[in-house]
């Protein structure tokens, strides 16, 4: 059973989660975001079902896909009901990175992996999600939303379970290795995500510096040219650029 227990990190973060879920507006928005994540997960799984050559796996993936789209439906319905009750407005910070949905930041390219690696990946990802959802279920203040998580968690237990048994079935010799590889690849991907985000930020800073240092002069010229432009049709030049030109 310890497989399904929340890892310590999630438990340590419990007060943070409690804070995140306290605000009803934010809660509703988060549920809608979760709905989109579950729906995406469902699509990945249906793709996996379409790609596998193992009939039993196909049926399980299809069932799993159905579960995920059902979860999407549950989240969406609850989120919408809450939003409708709250009325408009409430552009609250959603704190997505603090409380990710199922599959969290894991991205999956179903086409590129073999069944065993996919199962290992799904197993880990579902396990983490189940742990996370347990914490959410415990800290969320309103009973109806808690019930949604309770309902979904029942399926998640099945997902965690079948991915493991199927992994052992199709890769009896190397299921442990596959799990380790999946773990390593999740870590690597996590690192890549952080690194890419950092690089992105750095790029933004550099571009912004150029924007404010280099662009003003050109901007002046561009604005002046824009003022000269008359509204309406632009005649097309007689001499059209040839197809060789990119300009």
């Amino acid at each position: 059973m310890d497989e399904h227990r929340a890892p310590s990190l999630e438990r340590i973060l419990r007060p943070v989660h409690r804070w995140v879920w306290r605000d009803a507006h934010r809660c509703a928005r988060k549920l809608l975001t979760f709905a989109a994540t579950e729906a995406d997960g469902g699509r990945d799984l249906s793709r996996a079902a379409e790609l596998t050559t193992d009939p039993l796996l196909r049926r399980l993936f299809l069932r799993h896909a159905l579960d995920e789209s059902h979860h999407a439906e549950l989240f969406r319905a609850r989120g919408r009901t809450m939003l409708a009750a709250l009325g408009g407005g409430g552009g609250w910070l959603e704190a997505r990175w603090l409380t990710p949905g199922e599959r969290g930041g894991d991205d999956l390219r179903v086409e590129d992996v073999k069944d065993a690696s996919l199962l290992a990946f799904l197993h880990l990802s579902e396990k983490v999600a189940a742990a996370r959802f347990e914490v959410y279920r415990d800290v969320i203040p309103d009973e109806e939303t808690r019930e949604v998580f309770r309902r979904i968690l029942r399926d998640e237990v099945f997902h965690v379970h079948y991915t493991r048994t199927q992994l052992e079935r199709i890769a009896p010799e190397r299921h442990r290795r596959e799990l380790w590889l999946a773990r390593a690849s999740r870590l690597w991907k996590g690192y890549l995500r952080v690194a890419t985000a950092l690089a992105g930020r750095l790029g933004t800073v550099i571009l912004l510096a150029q924007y404010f240092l280099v662009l003003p002069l050109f901007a002046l010229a561009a604005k002046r040219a824009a003022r000269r432009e008359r509204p309406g049709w632009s005649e097309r030049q007689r001499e059209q650029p040839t197809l060789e030109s990119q300009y």
Partner: protein
Amino acid sequence: MRILGISAHYHDSAAALVVDGLPVCAIQEERLSRRKNDSAFPLAAVEWCLDEAGLEPEELDAVVFYEKPMRKLERILVTALRAFPRSWRSFPQAMKNTLGEKAWVKGIIASRLGVPARKILFTEHHQSHAAAAFLTSPAREAAILTADGVGEWATLTEGRGSRSPDGGCAIELLRELRFPHSLGMFYSTFTAYLGFEVNEGEYKVMGLASYGEPRFAEQVRAILRPTADGALELDLGYFDFHLSGRRAWSSRLVDVFGPPRSPGHPLDLATPDGKRFADVAASVQRVLEDRLVELTRALRRETGLRDLCLGGGVALNGCANARILNESGFERVFVPPAPGDAGCALGAALYADRIHFGGRDRPVPDHAYWGCPVDAGELERLAREDGLEVELAPGDRALVERVAEELANGRIVGWMDGRCELGPRALGNRSILASPASADMRDRLNREVKFREEFRPFAPAVPAGVADRYFELPPGGARLGRFMSGVFPVRPEWRSRLGAVTHVDGTARVQVVDPEVSPRFHALLLAYGARTGIPVLLNTSFNLSGEPIVARAVEGYSTFRRSGIDLVVAGRCIVAKARASGVRREEEAVS
């Protein structure tokens, strides 16, 4: 000449192959990658096209990209400069987007396909739209109007196309409207304001419009107004799309129309807010139509031509197309099955063939079925592996009779036949079919299959020979109906018997089915009519919400398994859902 056309990097990317002047295949990347609106470089689509034709990349004479990347880059830069310093937020993102793959298309094509740089050509974005509209149409000589969000600079062009008796072709674009003045941006801004996804939810705006009164039409007219020379301009005070990447509209727009609808918020037409959104949609739709009618009327007067070819994403607006046909004075209006950017892959290839290389004109087959074929054997294998019963119809007649019987009994059928369509519409080769008779069926499809907003109507399909009986088609209406490009009234006496496909305003986006191009689908409609008295079927695209239309049998099968579809058909293979499903328990036991 073997010419590959490519469109990519904006909405749905696509590839098309033209050999000796005729299209051989064309497909959107999303149909193969299975990522909806996939805008990545269409490598899978290119590979499939080359495979299908048995060609190696080095055997290509040219690869044509559908727009001029450097001019586009220029527009993005200049727009940022003009909006300085308000563009500071969007500038880094815009640069990162553009300086990545998008600006270096030539290098990407050369490296990914291994084609020498000298063989890589670039049409203008609106040349591609114009070619996709004119060169695929049967018109000898036609006026051309293209309108979309934006290409390089142009957002709308007018011109003319002609085919001369000696086999030469010409497309001359006479004038253009430039960014930020854009009918497409105008409509998308309101799409976003109404809480729908841009480039995806535009037709929801059109559907919603029928529920409202155009009580804001005057205000909208002031925002999209004619210029002295007969063009259009946007009052930019109401828009922010050219200034910041954050929001398309400005606070002035909110002052006039009220707060926007936040995405995900339920849209309840019984509430004052819901009513207001419907009224805004109705007003925006009305003004878009009015302006298009004014433009096309003037174009008709100027050219004196009888035929009009429409291209660009705006040509997906079936209500506007029908009004253009009715009111512009043009006798025939041609809209290709893929007027948007995906169709530009084909447009660019044809443009290069006819205009750049001066290839002899050849009439392009008048259909949309350029994608990959369906393999009935694949469906059969999958169903048997899963223990489902498989029926193989001995012939077309038997197939059609059997499926018609099921449809008449109120069952929902996933229908795959031949090659998949190019463009956003399912035209009977990858369609979900059902009885059009009652609104209950519409609700059931929305609930169990499409999982989507209810105010969007489903489309009917009707055999060409009897279309006029059920729908009020003006002269030329059947032509627009060929690719579901027009919205027309359902005849009042049939509305109650066509409840699932008749919109609240009594109209339908009808597909008029030609027996020459879709013999099986046409026969199915007749067989259904023989049983029910009305040879009309509800036809909606074969996909679940958020997914691309199915291409291959396996995707049709998986869609069937994950939804309320009762029966799936590929070629002559029929698979029905087992009545009481013990599948779930069996799987739990195995797992």
